[in-house]
C-alpha cells in the first residue's frame, strides 16, 4: 500500500476501527487470493465482468473485493449504478421482485462495457424463494446489470443461481499475508511492535484478516505495545507456546511435564474446546516427524469428537496426552 494513501486515510478518519480504516480501496491493496483478485482487477479495467459468486471464510476480503470492483468499474456513478444489499437489508421475494428488478430496469448511462452492479452480500442468508425469484431476473437484465454475490458457503446458494455465476472461491489468508498487512498497519500507526507480538496476532487470527486487525487494534490501544504477552492478554487463548511445549513433551514421551502444562491451562479456566482447538493448530506446525504428527492429529481429532459429545473434562484431555505419549513411544 502506498504510503501517501495511508496517510490520507489516517487524516480522514481518525476514529474508525482499523478494519474500516485500512479497508482496501484498490485491488493491489487486497491481500491474499491474488490470482482471483488479479483477474477481477482486470475486469475492473476492462469491464464486462460476468456475474460472480465469491465464497470463502470470513475475513478474507470478499466484500472488499466486490466493492473495489464496483468502485473502480463504475467510478463516479457508483452511487447510481450499484445496489448493495446485505443481510441486514430485507431481501425477501418481494424485494427481489420489486426493488432489484426496478434497479435492473433503471437506465443509468455508463461507459461501454460497464454495467450496473447488484451486490448481494451474505447471499447465503437469502431465502430460497428469494433466490428462485432472482434467477430469471439475472438473465434477462444481464445486458445492463451484473450481479456480485458474496457468501460464506456456496452450498446455500441454489443451483440455478450458481449456474448463472462464475464461482470464485476465496481461501483463508496465509500467515505471511496477514503478517505483511499487520506490519504495514503497524508502520502506519507508528506502533511499537516486536516479532513475537505480530506472530501471536497472526496465530490468533488464523487467516482472518478482520480478526487480526481487530486484535491488533485492541492490543495497541490497550497496551500500546505489540508484544506477545500483550496480545495474549487481549485475545485470551491457551498460549500456543505452552501447548507447543506440551506437545514436544509428549513427543519425547514425558507425560509429567506435559500434564503439568495441561493442568495449568485447565486451572486458568480455559474451555476444553479452546484448548483442543489450539492444540490442533499448534500441532499442525509442530516440528516433529510427519507421520507422528499425523498420528497426533488423529488422536486430537478423536479427543475433539469426545469433547463435542460432551465429555469435556480434564480427564479426556489427560487421556489425550497419554495417548499422544503412547503414539510417540510406539513410533
Amino acid at each position, binding site marked *: 500500500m502506498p504510503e501517501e494513501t495511508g496517510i490520507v486515510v489516517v487524516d480522514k478518519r481518525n476514529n474508525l476501527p482499523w478494519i474500516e480504516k485500512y479497508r482496501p480501496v484498490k485491488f*493491489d491493496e487486497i491481500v491474499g487470493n491474488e490470482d482471483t483478485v*488479479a*483477474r*477481477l482487477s*482486470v*475486469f475492473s479495467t*476492462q469491464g*464486462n465482468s*460476468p456475474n460472480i459468486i465469491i465464497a470463502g471464510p470470513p475475513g478474507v476480503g470478499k466484500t472488499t473485493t466486490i466493492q473495489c470492483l464496483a468502485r473502480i468499474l463504475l467510478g463516479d456513478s457508483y452511487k447510481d449504478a450499484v445496489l448493495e444489499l446485505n443481510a441486514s437489508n430485507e431481501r425477501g421475494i418481494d424485494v427481489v*421482485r420489486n426493488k432489484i428488478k426496478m434497479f435492473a430496469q433503471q437506465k443509468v448511462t455508463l461507459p461501454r*462495457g460497464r454495467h450496473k452492479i447488484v451486490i448481494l452480500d451474505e447471499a447465503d442468508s437469502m431465502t430460497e*424463494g428469494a433466490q*428462485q*425469484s432472482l434467477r430469471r*431476473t439475472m*438473465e*434477462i*437484465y*444481464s*445486458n*445492463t446489470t451484473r450481479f456480485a454475490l458474496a457468501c*460464506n*458457503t456456496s*452450498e*446455500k446458494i441454489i*443451483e440455478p443461481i450458481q449456474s448463472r455465476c*462464475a*464461482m*470464485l472461491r476465496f*481461501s483463508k489468508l*496465509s*500467515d*505471511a*499475508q496477514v*503478517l505483511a498487512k499487520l506490519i504495514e498497519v503497524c508502520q502506519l500507526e507508528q506502533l511499537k511492535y516486536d*516479532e513475537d507480538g505480530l*506472530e*501471536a496476532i*497472526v496465530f490468533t487470527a488464523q487467516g482472518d484478516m478482520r480478526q487480526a486487525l481487530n486484535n491488533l487494534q485492541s492490543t495497541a*490501544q*490497550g497496551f*500500546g505495545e505489540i508484544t*506477545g504477552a500483550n496480545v495474549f492478554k487481549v485475545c485470551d487463548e491457551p*498460549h500456543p*507456546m*505452552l501447548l507447543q*511445549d506440551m506437545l514436544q513433551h509428549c513427543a519425547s514421551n514425558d507425560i509429567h511435564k506435559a500434564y503439568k502444562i495441561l493442568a*495449568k491451562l485447565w*486451572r486458568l479456566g480455559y474451555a476444553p474446546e479452546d484448548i483442543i482447538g489450539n492444540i*490442533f*493448530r*499448534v500441532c499442525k*506446525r509442530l516440528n516433529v516427524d510427519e*507421520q507422528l504428527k*499425523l498420528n497426533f*492429529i488423529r488422536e486430537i*481429532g478423536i479427543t*475433539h469428537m469426545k469433547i*463435542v*459429545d460432551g465429555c469435556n473434562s480434564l480427564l479426556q484431555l489427560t487421556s489425550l496426552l497419554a495417548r499422544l505419549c503412547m503414539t510417540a513411544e510406539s513410533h
Partner: protein
Amino acid sequence: MCACASSKKTRPNPSEQTTTRTTTTTPTTTTTTAEEATNYTTPTKNVLEQPPTSPFILRAPPSAKSKLILQNMEEVLNTVKQKHREKHKRKREEKRRAALLAEQATAIEATNAAAVPAVTATTTTTTPNGRHVLREKTARENGLSQAKRKSNGSPVKSSTPQSSIMKAEPAGKTPAKATNVFELMMNARNRSMGTNANGQELAEAVEPIVTPHSKRKQMLQEWNDRKGGAKRRLADEARGDYIEQKMEQRAKRLKKMLTQPNEPRERKQSNSSSQELPRVRKQTSSSQETKETISSQEAQSDSKQTQAQAASAPTKRMRGRPRTRRLSADVETALPVSADPDTLQFLSKLSSPTKKRDSLLGYFTKVESPQNSAEREKGKPEIKLIEEAIETPKRRPRASKTSSNLSVNVEETSATTTPSGRPRRSCAAKARYDYDLEVSPTKAVKPSPAVEENDCIEIIDLDNSNPAVTPKKLAPLFVRQVPKPSPDPTALRARQEFLHSGVPEKLKQEQQRQRSYEQYYEDSYELFPSIAHVGSERLEVKQASKRLPLRAEEQQEEDAATIARKPRPGSITSCTASDFVASRKRTPCSWTPLPQLDNKRAMVKNWKSIFDRFPTFKCYNQMREKYRHFSAIDAAQDTQPMGESFVMTRRTRRSIQQQDVGKEEDFHPPALAPNGELLFTEKYKPLLFEQVLVNLTPVQELRDFLANWSGASASNRNSQTLDDSSNDHDSSSMSGSCNTMVLLGPCSSGKTNAVFALANDMNFNVLEINAGMRRTGKKLIQELQEATQSHQIRKEAKAGAAPTQQLLQKLQQNGLKARRNQGDDDVRKSLILIEDADIVFDNIDAGFTDAIYTLAASSKRPVIIVASDPNCAHLQRLMQQNTIKFQAPNALNISRFLAVLALMENCPIELDELISLYLFNNQNLRKTLMELQFFIQSGGDAKREQVAVAAPSGSPSKSPRLATLPGVQIHQRLFEFYTSAQNVQHLIPFPVDFRLLRLNLGELLRHSTQLQSPSTPVARRVGKRKSCSPKKAWLNKSEAQEPLQTLASFYEQLSTATLLDATLEERNDRLQPHLSEQLAHELVERAVGTCLAAKNYAYNLFDKPEQRFNLSDQLGSFQLRSSCARSLDYEPAMRSICRSEKQRASLERRSSRFYHYLRNHTNHNLSSFSLELYDAACQVLQEQAPLVE
C-alpha cells in the same frame, strides 16, 4: 392554617412530625391514608379557596391574641369561604348538578362499602370553586376505589382512620378511648364493612380527621402561592384591628356551636350532602345575615379549622397543650378574615392564580412550575415572620419558632405541591420529604369535598368541647414522635437556610470538582487509554502471587522457550516478520489483452479431424459470425452494418467464407471495451433453430410442437389475412391437450433458450412469466387474457412481453427480416412461456397453479411450461400430457463446442480442461460458460511462464491433446483455477466430500508413490501392493513400514476423519468454521500427503459417477439406526419396495404414492428427490448389488 403550623411550632417540625407520625405508626398505610385523605377532604376546595386567605397568614403571628383567636378563626375562615363561594357560585351550581348525579350513582355504591358514602358526600358538596363536573366524578371514582381499597385493606390500614376516630370522638369517650383503641378500630371497621348507616357516619367522622393533615399542607402551599408582595402586608396591617374584633365575636359563636355539636351533624347526615350544598351556598352568598347562617358558616369555618386542627391535632394532643395550638390555628385562620372584606380587589388580583386553577388550563400552568413558585414564595414568608417576631418581642420565641416551622412547612408544601402528573423534584432535603412527595400529588389533584368539611366540623366541635382530654386518647403509636425538644432558633435558622439553599454548596463544589476532573480526564486520555490499566496490573500481581509455585516454573519455561525460539520464529505460524519484505514486493498485475490468433482457421481444421461427429465447421462459422458481429457492434456501436450477416444459413455463409478466407483480421475487439458487453451465454446462444448444435432431439420435438401452431401460417405465410377459422380448426383438431407443453430438464440444459430460439425462428412472440414477477393467479390470468383469447398480439403487447434487451431483440428482428424478407413482424403470434413453473411461493403466488391449469385449458395459443423438477406435484397432470425432456448436453460435444468458442475468443483451451470443468460444474453449461468467460476475459493463463506443471497427466482415458500450431499457446490452467488450485494449494478441496473421496480412492491410491516403489511396475490393486515393498525415505524405521501398514494407517486416518466429519453433520450452519471439519480435512490431506506420498496430480475427485447410487445417502443418514440394520434390513426392504413400486407405477396411473410416502422420510433436498432416482436405485440394487456397500 398557618396557625396550625405555628401551633405545632411549639414542636420542632410540626408538619413533618405529623406526617412522620402517620408514617411511623403505619408505615404501610401512610400513603394510602394520605391519598384517601386527599380524596375525601382536601381537594380543590381547599386548594382553590385557600389562596385568598394565604396573604393574611403572614400577618397572623403579630395580630393574633392567642386566646381570642380560637373562636375568631373559624369565622374568618367562613368569610373567606363565603367570598369564594360568591365568586364561584355559578360553577358551584354546575357542580351541584353533577354532584346530584354523582350522588345518585354513589348512593347505589354506598351499600357496598362504608367508605364510599363519605366519598360521595364529598363529591356532592365539593369544590365550591367548581372544577368541572368531570373532575369531581373522577375524584369520586378515585375516592371510590380508595374506599374500596380501604374496606378491603388489612386492619392495619383501617387503623389509621380509627386513630383519627379516636381523635374525633374525644368528647364523648375521653376516658375509655385509651383502652379501647383497638375496639374502636375494629368497630369502625365492622361498621364500615357492615351496616351502611353506621358505617357512613363513622366514615364521615373518621375521614375528615385523616385528611386535615394533608389539607393543612395544601393550605400552606396555597398560602405560599398567594402570598404577594409588600402591598398585601400593608393592607393586612390596616385591617388588624378589625380582625381582632371579629375574632372575638366568632370565638363566642363558636363556643355556642360547640355546646350543640349534634345539630350540624344530624343536619348533614339527614340531608344528603347534595342537599346541604345549596344551603351552604346560600349562606355563603348572604355572607353574614342570619345567625343560623352564621352558625352554618361557623360550621364551615369549623370545618376549616378542623382541617387545620386535624393537621396539627395529633401532635398537639400528644403534647397535651391543645389550647395553644388552637390559638395559633385560630390566629392563622383569623388573619385571612381580616383581609377578606377590605381586599376584595386585592383578592381579585390574587385570584388570578385561583382562576387559573379553576380552569383546566390554569391547573396545568400551575402544574408546570410548582417548584419555581414554591421557591419564589419560600423566601418571603419567613422574612416576614421573622420581622414580625421581632416586632412583638413577647411572642418572639414562638414567633421565631413558628417562622422557622412555617418555613419548614412552606418548604414541605412547596415540595408537596408537585402534582401527580409532574415528575417530582426536590433537590434539597429529598430524603426528608419523601413521604410528602408521595402524598402530595394526589392531594393537589383531588377536589376537596365539602361534606367532609362538615364532618370535620363535628369532630372539631368535639375537640373543642373538651380539648384537654384529647391528648390522652392518642394511640401509643403516635406518641413516639413527640419527644423532640424544640430546637433553638439558631439551629432552626440554620436548618431553614439549609432547606432554602437548594443544592448544598458542598455538593455543588463536589460536582464541579468531579466535572472538572472528568473533563480533565477526557482531555488527557484517549478513548482507549494507551496506558495499561492499573487494575489489571494489580490483578496480575495477585494472580501471580496466588499460583506462585507453578507460575515461577512455567514462567521460566516459557521465557526459556521464547528465548530459545526467537532465533527461529514462525514456529506457531507459518511465517516470520522477515518474510515481510519479500512478500511486499508483489508484482503489479499487468494485463495484456490476449493476442489475436491469426490462424484460428487452421487450428479448427486440425480439430475437425479429431472431433468426429461434431459439426466443427458449422460451429466455428457460427461463432465466428457472432464474434465478428458483436465485436463490430462493440467497435462501431452500430448494429446495422453487420447485423444480418450472421444469421445467414450455413450454405450462404460457406460461400462467403470462401471468399474472405484471408481476412479474418477484420474483426478485432474494440479498444474501448475489449471484453465486449455481453455475457458469453448471451453472445453465443442460438438464435435460430439451425444454430442449435447440441441437444438437438428435444429441440426438434419442441419445434414440431410449435410447428403445429404456426403450421397454418407457415403454409400461407405471405397472406396477412390469417383466417382465424383455419387456425381454430387447427387448434381444435389438435385437441386441448396439445396447447401446452412441459419442458423438463435440469438447470441450464437449454430449455428457455430453445424456446426463444424457436420462437425467433418461427416468428412467435414470447410472453414470458417467470418467478421474478409477481404471479398470482389473478394477475397471470389478467395479463394473459388477451394472449389466450386471441391469436395475434400486436406490437403493443410486446411491451408486456419479457423485456429482453433491445439489442438482441433488434438482432432477432433483423435476423427474421434476413430470413424471411417479410414485414410480418406485427403479425407475430404469441406464445406463452411460463418459467420456473415448479416454483410456487404459497403465500405470495396464490392461485398460480390454478392459473396455469386454466391457461392450459382455455388458451388458444401454445403454452410452454418450463420446469426443472420432474416430481413437481402440482404439474403432474400437465406433465403426463405433454412433456419434452431435456438432458444436460453431452460432455464430449460440449467440450468441443467450448473449445471452438474459446478459440474464437483467442484463448485456446485444452479439451480436458473443458470437460473436467464441465463435469465439475455438474454438467452445467451456463456456469461453465460463465467461468470460461471469467477465465478468458481476465487473461487466460495469467502467468504464462508457468506452463502447465501440473498437467492432468494421470487420467489415461482423456481425449488426445489438441493439436496446436507452433506459436500458439494453449491455456491450461482453467480447471485448476476453478477447482483445487484457486488461491490455495490443497490436495483435497477443503470441505472433504467423503463420498467422493471414497469413489476416487482407487485413483488416489494409484498415484501414491508410497505404495509403489519407483522400480517396480505400477500396482493397481491393493492386493498387489502388498507384495511390493517400497522403502520410505522419510522414515527411520523404513524396513518396518510395509505398504500394507501404510495403507492401514492411511485408512485409519481416513476413518477418523470420516467420524469427525460425521459429527459435524447435524450442524448445517457453516457460517463459522468448524474445527472438526478442519481436523478432518487436515487429516485426510496429511494422510494423502504423508502416508501415500501422492504425487501432486489433478485427481478427478469431481466427476461423480452417476451410475453409482447409495440409497442411504438419498434417504438421510439419521434414519439408519445402525449400519447393521441398514445392511440387514433397511436396504433389502427398500429394494423390494422399489421393485414393487416400479411395477405398480407401470400399471397404475397413480404412481406418486410411493413418492409421497418416501418423501416424508427423506429429510434433505426435497426438490431433487425423484422417482427416477429410485428407479435407478432399484436397478442398481438389483443388478449391481456388490457395488453398493
